């Protein structure tokens, strides 16, 4: 039966190539956009590559203190992380990472600009950078304040070409560093030249005595189930930070965010609420995707109704020979979903091309976006939903044609 349906569909779709083409274009275009959005979201928020622990990592970027008539929001100081965040029992690992500093490295007659971050050895346990050569710095290096750096491949290539970067000396901000490791951050892939150094080599030596500074804290929960408990705990401890001047600063606040929380906070009006609005943001994204499908779906409904006229004779004959309404609805839906699936295949190819192109232009800070199995699965689900949504109304109307009129060709 299905074979017959497909044969029939084939005939119908080839009859009016122009409209089939438009039909397909409509489907493909919509799916490409939806798939690209899905791929980007997956890349940004799902655990993968360097961020293999993403589902159980939260970051604390800001330390906010509120006084009577002013509010101050700064980065975290090292002392704050040591005193209030490291001791949290549900945090399996806690790392302090400074915000990236733009530095210029002067090698012989070349200038290279790169982002430098100061951090600790725990950083390498939370983020899984692939080590290409040498080693990463250990707790021991940080304690001793050894001037060592780890480069990413982007900058290593720029500075030392194909030769080995290990053991080379780098002069950064009047400080001599030795390169001990090169990592690949293809999966995290900002595509930016980056390097990491132990925080004990920071230019100011008194950074350990301050509650405010340039650090963010990265905390890893024991499992993804405990992330919410960890967030609450950070928030709770943030309330009880002892300021040097408690009269001036009456309230203190720390907020821990997962990657998606941070994204959702960008849309929320209240930057100080404990709830980041992640659920609402997800809800909005799904609603928007659905709305996005609505216009193309309406168009397809129109196009499909246009075919009704042409097929009225066929419908009439089938009805006269006793096909039920349900039978016909089924047939038209199969036809529509089939066309959608053809569109889906084309869309997957195009999406892949589009993502590769986006990576290539470096327009968005993301490398190695691509179509993988989970995107394929999402795409399949989206397509079937789309096919049914856009097919059900015309199918129903066509199937309910009165056979007498249909045979006369008077739809």
């Amino acid at each position, binding site marked *: 039966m299905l074979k017959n349906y497909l044969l029939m569909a084939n005939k119908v779709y080839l009859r009016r190539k*122009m*409209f089939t083409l*438009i039909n397909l*274009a*409509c489907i493909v*275009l*919509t799916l490409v*956009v939806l798939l690209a959005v899905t791929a980007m979201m997956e890349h940004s928020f799902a655990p993968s590559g360097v961020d293999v622990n993403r589902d159980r990592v939260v970051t604390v970027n800001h330390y906010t203190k509120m006084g009577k008539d002013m509010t101050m929001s700064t980065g975290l100081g090292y002392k704050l992380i040591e005193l209030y965040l490291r001791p949290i029992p549900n945090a399996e690992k806690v790392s302090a990472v400074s915000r990236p500093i*733009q530095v*210029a490295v*002067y090698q012989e*007659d*070349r*200038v290279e600009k790169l982002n430098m971050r100061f951090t600790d050895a725990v950083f390498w346990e939370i983020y899984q950078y692939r080590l290409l050569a040498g080693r990463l710095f250990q707790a021991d290096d940080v304690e001793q304040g050894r001037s060592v750096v780890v480069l990413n491949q982007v900058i290593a290539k720029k500075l030392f070409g194909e030769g080995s970067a290990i053991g080379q000396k780098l002069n950064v*901000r*009047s400080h001599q560093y030795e390169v001990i490791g090169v990592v690949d951050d293809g999966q995290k892939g900002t595509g930016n030249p980056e390097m990491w150094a132990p925080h004990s080599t920071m*230019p*100011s030596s008194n950074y350990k005595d301050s509650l405010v500074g340039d650090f963010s804290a990265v905390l890893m929960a024991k499992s993804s189930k405990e992330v919410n408990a960890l967030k609450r705990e950070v928030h709770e401890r943030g309330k009880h930070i002892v300021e040097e001047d408690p009269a001036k600063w009456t309230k203190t606040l720390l907020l821990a965010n997962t990657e998606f929380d941070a994204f959702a906070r960008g849309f929320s009006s209240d930057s100080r609420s404990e709830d980041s609005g992640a659920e609402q943001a997800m809800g909005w994204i799904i609603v928007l995707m659905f709305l996005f499908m609505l*216009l*193309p779906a*309406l*168009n*397809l409904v*129109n*196009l499909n*109704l*246009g075919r009704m*006229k*042409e097929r009225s004779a066929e419908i009439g004959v089938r009805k006269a020979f006793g096909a039920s309404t349900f039978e016909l609805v089924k047939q038209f839906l199969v036809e529509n979903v089939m066309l959608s699936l053809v569109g889906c295949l084309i869309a997957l190819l195009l999406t892949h091309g589009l993502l590769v192109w986006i990576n290539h232009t470096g*327009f968005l800070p993301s490398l190695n976006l691509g179509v993988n199995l989970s995107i394929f699965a999402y795409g399949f689900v989206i397509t079937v939903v789309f096919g049914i949504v856009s097919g059900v109304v015309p199918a129903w109307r066509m199937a309910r044609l009165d056979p007498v009129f249909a045979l*006369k*060709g*008077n*739809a």
Partner: protein
Amino acid sequence: MLKHLLKSLWKRKGKNLMISAEILLIFVVIFGVVVGFVHNSRLYHQTRGFDYEDRWRVSFETELDVLSKPNPQLVENFRRSLQAMPEVESVSFVQFGPYSNSAFVGDFRGTESGQKLSTYFVTADDASQSTLKIPVVSGRWFSQQDEGASETAAVINRRLAKKMFGDEDPLGKLMTNSDMGQKDPKFYRIVGVIEDYRYFGEFMGYENIALFRHSSISENPLTNLIIKVKPGTPRNFEIKLHQQLKLVRNDIEYDISVLDETRDEMLRQKATFFAPPIFIASFLLLMVCFGLFGVLWQNVNSRIPEIGLRRAVGASSLQIYSQIITEQVLLSSMAMVVALVFLVQLPFTGIFAKFMDWSSFFLSAGIAMMVIYAMTIVCSLYPAWMASRMSPTDALHYE
């Protein structure tokens, strides 16, 4: 004829309503995008008020106290040391260099007029005008002769002069940042008027700008050097420059950038900002195209008898052709008129006065209309062609 067309449109109002709503929506979206475009392109073509080619910026990044208060000796050392380099044409100190994104904004008023004006103010030295080639409209740039005066010399842009002093000559007048009767007010004497100094870059809005002379009595330390180099200076001059700066003070970190590159980065960010709206608008436009196509096709299919009849009584295929297209153009026009009834409220109420005046409203509406008409005509071509090819005998046999 028009009456006949309107009648046939009215007959199919249910079908037409949906597609009209789609056209209305896409018209508003395109209008919005075009307004943004027009606004930004106008800003881009405004006088920038400085030159950026062959100019380099050095920012001092340090936690040292040396820079927190004026230090004439240090300034002089830097100046002398850099001017000694053969590539360097001139050197100047400014508080915020071009294409920076930090600013000080404060309320200033003329001492004679009480009206407060929100003004961007920047401190700069005597050499900044020649280094950045800031065009002076009237009066002069501040110079050594202002040294020792009781008020700090100031140069303001034309817009501020107009707002603060109306048609009077602003030269020699005083402005202040304090309210009447406040203790210890600061006064600035205006010595010159410039066209503009839009140091955020080409997309900075229409702002009031004042530049104050940096001298031994001003309190803003200057942490940005602007260096004009000879044309054709190679990019790796940065290494030489860095070494030279380190010779002056080894304990300061220098962040060197080329204004050309900073500007490109700014333009790139602007483009990135525009990408999503353009993308969404084009997607919607395509979708409405497809929809229109589908509707017209159905339309033609279900009106076969009518078209056949018209052919039989002697209408040429060209007339059929134009009927289908005119109908659709009429329909699009109606949708757009409805949209404009709403949109015209915007310049009337002045909600978006910052982005849109009447002229840009008409320009944007015109461009958006062009786009919609082009889309309408392109989408009607094929269905109209199908209709015009119908032979009257077949069409009339249709029952």
